């Protein structure tokens, strides 16, 4: 184990995988300079053929990824900010998510789309959307949201080796968060949730960047004798329902934390799944800690008021535990 920052872990994963598989080509805007640091050094190491700076043209590059993958390459396509995925949405929603299905499985589309997603840095509305619910609804793309550097590395390696289009969403502005990362090579499979902290009183499912505040809240609540089980799905497509259902069946209570706008969020979807398939285990209403249905504002004081945080999570947990069926 070594202490590494999230973005370093991602950089290692990219490096190792490109080393391992010469069919990989990586492109995107300024991947050579590397704004976030994830693609740093790759251009020097692998050359201008395999690592390409593109012009600013998301519609093209998202589609080029599909064409290059259909033609036999393993592709890593950097979309930079989650909001720019909208700019390249056509090829993602209409081509990447559909081409394999429409052609009856004739091809694989091994594409990893990289983007940062979410707010918290006063980057304002056009650089702060959490885009995973939109992607998850497309059906044809997998969506990975790591909650720690170690996961980031193992999941990114799996994403790259996966034969389907995968969105790897790193929490924006949190590339510097440190964590212990194994030294030896390892993979973390897509679709396998992790129980970050066991607990008997309530299941707290926290997605991506929300894992940290969820753990903090769990820690604080533990001081009061409330034992919360923190579940990190790690990938929202596919979703590891077994682990989540099993946790809810143990605790009887569920709070989901998702840095997405509430309407049609992954939090909503998880709540719906549990309200359908673990209903009998439920002792209390399912709460969501999400972003209200508005944009992400610029001023820090406004942004803080909008984004899920430790206090909001604690409050939701407490209220769920305090809930009593009306007489």
């Amino acid at each position, binding site marked *: 184990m070594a202490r590494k920052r999230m973005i370093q872990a991602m950089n290692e994963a990219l490096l190792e995988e490109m080393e391992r598989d010469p069919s990989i*080509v990586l492109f995107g805007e300024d991947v050579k300079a590397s704004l976030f640091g994830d693609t740093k050094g790759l251009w020097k190491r692998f050359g201008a053929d395999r690592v390409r700076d593109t012009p600013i043209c998301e519609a*093209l*590059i998202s*589609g080029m990824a*599909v064409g290059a993958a259909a033609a036999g390459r393993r592709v890593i396509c950097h979309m930079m900010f989650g909001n720019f995925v909208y700019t390249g949405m056509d*090829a993602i929603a209409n*081509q990447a998510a559909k081409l394999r299905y429409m052609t*009856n*499985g004739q091809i694989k589309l091994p594409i990893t789309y990289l983007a940062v997603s979410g707010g918290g840095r006063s980057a304002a509305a056009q650089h702060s959307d959490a885009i995973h619910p939109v992607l998850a609804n497309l059906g044809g793309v997998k969506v990975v949201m790591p909650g720690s550097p170690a996961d980031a590395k193992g999941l990114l390696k799996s994403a790259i080796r996966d034969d389907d289009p995968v969105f790897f969403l790193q929490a924006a502005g949190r590339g510097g968060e440190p964590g212990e990362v194994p030294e030896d090579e390892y993979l973390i499979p897509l679709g396998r949730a992790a129980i970050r902290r066991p607990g008997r009183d309530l299941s707290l499912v926290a997605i991506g960047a929300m894992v940290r505040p969820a753990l903090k809240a769990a820690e604080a609540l533990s001081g009061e004798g409330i034992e919360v089980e923190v579940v990190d799905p790690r990938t929202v497509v*596919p979703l590891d329902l077994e682990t989540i259902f099993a946790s809810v069946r143990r605790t009887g209570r569920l709070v989901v934390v998702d840095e997405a706008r509430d309407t049609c969020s992954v939090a909503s979807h998880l709540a719906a799944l549990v309200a359908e398939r673990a209903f009998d285990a439920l002792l209390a209403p399912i709460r969501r800690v999400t972003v209200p249905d508005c944009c992400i504002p610029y001023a820090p004081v406004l942004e803080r008021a909008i984004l899920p945080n430790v206090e909001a999570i604690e409050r939701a947990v407490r209220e769920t535990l305090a809930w009593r069926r009306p007489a």
Partner: protein
Amino acid sequence: MAAGGSNLPREELLEMYRRMVLIRRIEEQLARDCAAGKLPGPVHLYIGEEAVAVGVCRHLSERDWITSTHRGHGHFLAKGGDPARMMAEIYGRADGICGGFGGSMHVADFSKGIIGANGIVGGGIALATGAALAAQLDGDGRIAVAFFGDGAANQGVLMEALNVASLWKLPLILVCENNGFSEFSPTATVTSGSIAERARPFGVPFREIDGNDVIAVWQAADVAVRRAREGRGPSLIEARTYRTRGHVEYEVTFITEPYRDEAEVDAWRARDPIDRFARRLREEDPGVADELAAIDAAVEETVRAAVRFAESSPEPDPASARGHMFATAP
């Protein structure tokens, strides 16, 4: 025999003729099928434009890539796709080239380099650019061709592709089939200036050609294909042509006012690419008539066989409807 002074070998000329006739007859069958209510989904026929697909695809091997459009049967067949399996696909049958999952707007056969028809106007342009990138990395002289319409040429992704393909010298050929219409809008009402010229500011060579002259298409494609194979970068070809049928079969049921003159249609019918080519072949070599007749007859049989194949194919199994979403299932 070298039609139009093209120096093309006889067998090449006859093969071009055969492919054009194949596309025509298959689509005439589809037109009848559609009128008879036998087709579950919409079909956009390529009738009148066959010379473009054929003149270009004759330069391509199965290892080259093409992307196509909603009007994609011609490209599929010109590139060597199987007519019977295409027919079965459009009939929505299990033996369709896409198992009945895709239909007319998505006929594809990757084993033949056919990335496929596309329901998104302009959607194939980015895919072909990506395939050209893969081809360039493979470094074995493969190339990619994007067919798209004059309407699609107004999608910004064309400019994006011209820019990237030029910067990276991608082995990409952009073939615009200007048939005078975007759906029901005449080109001039929605397209400013010249499409071919849009390549100029990017330093991409371009040519505007008579898309109803298969030799002219063949020759323009020859130049562009060589250039691409030799690593000298992309080209754009604008082929002027015309669809003599509607935008989509059965459009008269919902487009109640005519959007073009019958006289215009007739004028283009008089320039029909197959008739013209056959005439030229016969003029240069009257002896060819028998061979053409034999091709015609063989094609008729291919069409009948395709229909039989499609009709005898079962419907897909409803239990399979979730299809092949992912290669790696969770």
